C-alpha cells in the first residue's frame, strides 16, 4: 500500500468521525427542545477542551513532520552523491535513462521554458518524490532508489496542451 493510499484511509477515518458528530447533533433536534442558555455552559466547556486538544494536536503534528521535510540540508548537500541534471521543456525531460540503485542521487532540476514538475513514480505506480522544474532556477532533489526497476517521471505542473504526455521512463539498476 502506497503512502498516499494510507493517507486516504486516514482521511476517511477523520471525515467519518466528523460526519458522525454532525449526524448526532442533527438527530438531537428530534429530542425535547432545551433553552439556549441551558446548554451554553456545558457547550462552552466542551469547546474549551476541543480548542486545547486541537491546538496541541496540530502543534505536535507540525513538530513531528519537520524531520521528514524533503528539503536538502547543508550536510546532505555535502555528502557524496551522484549529480544528475534534469532539464524539463515542453513536453519532455532530458535526463539519463539509467540510474544506480541504492546510491544517493541529487537531481538538479530546471526548465528551459515554463514551470514543470518532476514527479517520480516507482514501478508499482506510486508517486515517491517530486520537485518543481522552474525556468531561471535549479531545484535540488536528493533521493536513493532502494528498488530496481522501471520508473517513470511525469510532469505534475500544467505546462501547456501537451502536459499529459510529458513523461520519461528510466531504469534503476542493471535490469
Amino acid at each position, binding site marked *: 500500500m*502506497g*503512502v*498516499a*493510499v494510507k*493517507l*486516504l484511509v486516514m*482521511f476517511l477515518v*477523520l*471525515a467519518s468521525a*466528523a*460526519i458522525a*458528530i*454532525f449526524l448526532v*447533533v*442533527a438527530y*438531537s*433536534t428530534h429530542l425535547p*427542545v*432545551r433553552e*439556549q442558555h441551558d*446548554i451554553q455552559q456545558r*457547550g462552552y466547556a466542551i*469547546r474549551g477542551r*476541543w480548542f486545547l486538544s*486541537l491546538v496541541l494536536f*496540530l502543534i505536535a*503534528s*507540525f513538530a513531528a513532520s*519537520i524531520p*521528514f521535510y*524533503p*528539503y*536538502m540540508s547543508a550536510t546532505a548537500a555535502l555528502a557524496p552523491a551522484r549529480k544528475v541534471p534534469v532539464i524539463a521543456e*515542453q513536453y519532455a525531460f532530458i535526463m539519463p535513462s539509467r540510474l544506480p540503485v541504492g546510491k544517493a542521487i541529487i537531481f538538479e532540476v530546471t526548465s528551459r*521554458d515554463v*514551470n514543470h514538475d518532476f*514527479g517520480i513514480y516507482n514501478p508499482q*505506480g*506510486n*508517486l515517491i518524490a*517530486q*520537485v518543481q522544474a*522552474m*525556468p*531561471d*532556477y535549479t*531545484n*535540488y*532533489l536528493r533521493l536513493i532508489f532502494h528498488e530496481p526497476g522501471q520508473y517513470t517521471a*511525469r*510532469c*505534475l*505542473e*500544467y505546462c*501547456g*496542451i*501537451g*502536459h*499529459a*504526455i510529458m513523461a520519461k521512463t528510466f531504469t534503476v539498476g542493471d535490469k
Partner: protein
Amino acid sequence: MVLTSDNTSRRVMTLYMGTGLALTALMMFAGLMLRASQAGWMPMSPGQFYAVLTLHGAVVIVALMLCGMGGLWFLMRRLTSLSAGTALIAYACIAAGAAAVIAATLFGGFAGLYTFLAPLPFHGSWPYWSTGAFLIGMTLITIGWMAWCMQMLGAVLRAYGGALGALAWDFVWHRKVFDASGRPLPPPEAFPALMAGFDGMLAGMSAMLLGVALIVRWIDARVLINPLWAKNLTYFFAHTYANLIIYMLAALIYVGMPYATGRKYHTSTALVVGWWCSMLLTLTNYFHHLYMDFVQPGPFQYLGELSSYLSAVPVTVVTIFSALMLVWRSGMKWTLGAIFMYAGLIGWVVGGIGAEIDATVPFNTHLHNTLWVPAHFHTYLVGGCVLFAVGWVFLCLESRSIRRTGTLMRWAVGLLTFGGMVVFLMGFYCAGAYGVPRRYAIESPPGPELAKIASIGATVMIIGFALAFAEGVRLRFGYPDGEATMRIGQEVEA
C-alpha cells in the same frame, strides 16, 4: 421579526447571487464535460479540454465570489452605509472581466489555466490576442473586487469607530472602557466583512501588480518576469480569493443558522479573537502551494505548514462549533434551507481535513498536483460554499413563501444532491491517493475508471440541484400579494 424591507439591498443581492449561482450552474456542466472527457465518454482535443478547464476554474471562483459578495453586502447594508451605485460599478467591472475571460477561452482557446503561472501564458499554442484578453479580463475582475472591498472596508470602519472599533479591540482587552464608551459592538457578520475588505484589498493589490506586469510582458516580449516572484503573487491572491469566498459566506451562517434554529448568535471574545486569527492566517497559509519549490526560502515552508494547520482552529472552534451549539436540541425544522446550510458546514470541515493532510509537507510530496488537490477544494467549494449560497437563497424564499416543501421532495433533493456529491468527490480523492496527476486531458489508470464513476456521481448531483431549483421556483410563486418584507435575519433598527 422584521428584517429588511429595503428593496435596493435585496435587488443588489439578487443581482450578485443570481449571477453567481447561474454561472456556477453552467460551470457544473463544464466540469461534468471535463470528467466525462477523462472517462473517455466525450471526445475533446487537449486544446479544447484545457480551454474549458481554464474557463471552469476562473469562472467558478468569480461566480462564488459574487455569491459571497452579494450576500455579505446585503447583510452589511442593514448595519452600515453602503452605496448601491458602487456595488453596481463593481459588478459591471467583474461582469466585463468575466466576459473577456469567456471570450478568451471559448473563442480564443486560451488554455493557460486560471492560475496562469508565468511565463506559460506566453508559451502556449493559442492565439496571442487571447492571452491579452484573458489577462485584461482578470485585471478587470480584480478592479471590481477591489472597489467592492474598499467600499466594504470603509463602511465597516466608519460604522464601528475605526480599525480598533471594527476589530472590537477594547471589547476584548478593555471591557470596562468599552462598556462605558457606549460604542456599538460589531455583530458577528461584521467580522467577515472586515476580513473580506482588508485581506481582499491586499490580495487584490498583489493580483493587480502581477496582472499589470503580465500585461506589460504581453505588450513587450523583452520584459522579463521572475517566475518565483510571479508564482508567489499568483498563489497569494488566488488562495486568498478562494479562502475569502468561504469566509464571506460564513456571514450567512451567522444570520441564517440563528434564523433556522430560533436562537441568538452574538459577538463573544472567542469569536472576535478567532476572526483576528483568520485574518492573519489567511494571508500566510498560501505558502503551502509552493512546498515543492525547493528554492523558496525555507522559513516560508515551515510557516506555510504551521499557518495552514492553525487555520483550522478558529474555523472549527468558533464558527462550526457555535453553529453546532445553535442546532443542538433546538428543535430546528429541517427545511431545504436548513439542510443545505447544515450540510455546507460538513463540506467545510471534510474539505478542511483533506486540505490539512495535503498541507503537511511530507504528505504533500505524495499528493501535490495529484487529483487530491481538486478533491479537497471541490469539497469545500461545492460541498461548502455552493451549499451555503443555495441554503441562504432557500431560507430567504422560505421566509416569504406561504408554500412549504414536502418531506418527499426534501428527501429526494438531499439524497440526489449529497449522494451524487459524495460519489463525485470520492472519484477525485481515490484518484489522488493512487497518484493520478491533476490537469491531465488523458489520464493513466485508474484515472479513467474513476472518472466514469465521478461523472455518474456529478450527473446525479446536478439532477439533485435541478430538483432544488424547481422547488425554489415553486416557493417563489408562493409569495403572498403585497408582501414586501423579507423576514430572515437578525432584527435591526430601522
